[in-house]
């Protein structure tokens, strides 16, 4: 499927999943993410894949984890209320190092909130929603094209680092339609997980002598244990501190040692900027409009768009803090990413939030008035 098409964000996400090699989807429909499952229910069987509508979101992610252990690239799609129910299994996937992709299309919350209204209120939930210290990768698209690209990237990163990856979209990007030229198969980079090359009796699925141990698929002759309990290199429960600590260090190191590969930001008009906008998702679009409006008034404003939300883009924000006097963080929540920006800036520049949480998209005018203050 290539050539120029006019697609919805959720359609582009489904196309991205297929292009990345996803062959399993389990989910429970929820607005504003439902189209992803709907499309994959038709498309997956045609490419030899499987679609299952589960009884709820807990079982959905459980099925995805099982499919991934069976060797398939697997995903689920949900929104805030469903994502809340997935937190337990999200922690399991992080601890057991199971590659999988969770697409979360944010809607207004908390609780049922407003199903058809946009929000960006789940940034911190995506980072810390499951209990315990754990590594996670979270990507945020701000266009239909990016929803495709970042879904492919989510699979690649999850396969490469044996970790769950969350694509944190929002209702605006999920439901808007834009022109997109889908790349032909072979035009995009697709990464497949490392498989063991040693014989089964020598295989350790949680070998701490390597950052990302190869992952055998169940049913291929490699028998191993998978558990959420602290485990040794073979996957069996352990209470030995000398086994727990290296495991803990490794699952963080495998992400933290590769920030250059994982953390992606886009800078625009930052060369001469005196004011920086730091934005992501739908808010980044409003911020870009505001930036252009400000430039027409000869205000030196630049934009730093975060395409990776977690791990946080500390190096990029540090660079901004050295350069500008004022940083404005527009968000459709009460300032979740602003807290991170403030942490990194540590008083070197003024950090202001521009926030909207009434179920509508943050407007360029609202951001422009903060710029002009």
């Amino acid at each position, binding site marked *: 499927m290539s050539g120029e098409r006019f697609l919805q964000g959720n359609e582009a996400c489904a196309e991205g999943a297929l292009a990345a090699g996803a062959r399993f989807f389990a989910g429970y429909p929820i*607005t504003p993410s439902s189209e992803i499952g709907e499309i994959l229910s038709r498309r997956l069987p045609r490419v030899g894949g499987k679609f299952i509508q589960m009884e709820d979101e807990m079982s959905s992610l459980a099925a995805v984890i099982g499919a991934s252990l069976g060797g398939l690239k697997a995903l689920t799609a949900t929104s805030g209320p469903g994502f809340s129910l997935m937190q337990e299994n999200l922690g399991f996937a992080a601890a057991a190092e199971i590659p999988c992709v969770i697409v979360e299309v944010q809607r207004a919350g908390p609780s049922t909130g407003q199903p*058809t209204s946009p929000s960006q209120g789940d940034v911190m939930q995506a980072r810390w929603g499951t209990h315990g210290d754990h590594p996670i990768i979270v990507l945020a698209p701000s266009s239909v094209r990016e929803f495709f690209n970042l879904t492919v990237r989510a699979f690649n990163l999850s396969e490469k680092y044996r970790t769950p990856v969350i694509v944190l979209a929002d209702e605006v990007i999920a439901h808007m339609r834009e022109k997109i030229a889908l790349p032909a198969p072979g035009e995009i980079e697709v990464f497949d997980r490392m498989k063991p090359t040693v014989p089964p009796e020598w295989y350790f699925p949680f070998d701490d002598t390597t950052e990302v141990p190869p992952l055998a698929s169940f049913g291929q002759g490699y028998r191993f244990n998978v558990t959420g309990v602290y485990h040794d290199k073979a996957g069996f429960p352990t209470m030995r501190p000398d086994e727990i600590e290296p495991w803990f260090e490794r699952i963080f190191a495998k992400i933290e040692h590769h920030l250059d590969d994982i953390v992606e930001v886009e800078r625009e008009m930052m060369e001469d900027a005196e004011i920086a906008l730091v934005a992501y998702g739908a808010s980044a679009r409003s911020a870009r*409009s505001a930036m252009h409006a400000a430039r027409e008034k000869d205000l030196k404003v630049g934009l730093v768009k975060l395409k990776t939300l977690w791990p946080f883009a500390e190096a990029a924000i540090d660079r901004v803090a050295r350069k500008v006097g004022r940083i404005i963080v527009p968000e459709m929540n009460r300032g979740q990413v602003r807290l991170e920006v403030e942490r990194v800036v540590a008083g070197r520049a003024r950090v202001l939030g521009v926030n909207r949480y009434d179920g509508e998209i943050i407007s360029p005018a609202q951001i422009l008035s903060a710029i002009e203050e």
Partner: protein
Amino acid sequence: MCFVSQLRRRKGWRNMAERYEIRLAGLGGQGLLLAGLLLAEAAAIHEGKHAVQTQSYAPYARGGASASEVIISDKEIDYPRAQRPDIVVVLSQEAYDKYFRDLRNDGMLIVDSSTVEHIDTSKAYFYETYMVPLTEMARQATGREMTASMVALGVIAGLTDIVSQESLMAAITTRAPKGTADINKRAVQAGIDAANKLREGVVEE
């Protein structure tokens, strides 16, 4: 009997503008989403422009005020919603009450006179306002009221140069749901015919 009328025509519609914002507003189930999609597809795929289509809607499938918005521009589009729409089409009283107030002063308001009973005529005179019985025309042209949004597209294509009639018909051919292309084309044609009458100054059929 179908009446089409123009409450006021301002000196000139802004043809050849760099950016147009169009809002189709009504109730869930009136085909607003498909109409917005086809208008945007006509501009984006068949005329090579930039286009973004968004929607705001109530969480139920039918009923509830909802709107489909289309931005068409020669340049890349960032903010995806209409800020000051150039055209607003209202297909229900609730949509009229809720969705036309931010229309540009030189904008175009198309009111479905078969569903909207009360309009503020003092306000109407600020805009180029057309009263078109979109739902009634849809019923006559296709037998389906939900093609009223498609009639509205025909009116837009007939009165403005935002998209050509050919591009609109081409978008319907390639993108309308299977088996509905003919019906949708008939509805659009009814709108184009009404627009031609409006242009010629015929106010009554």
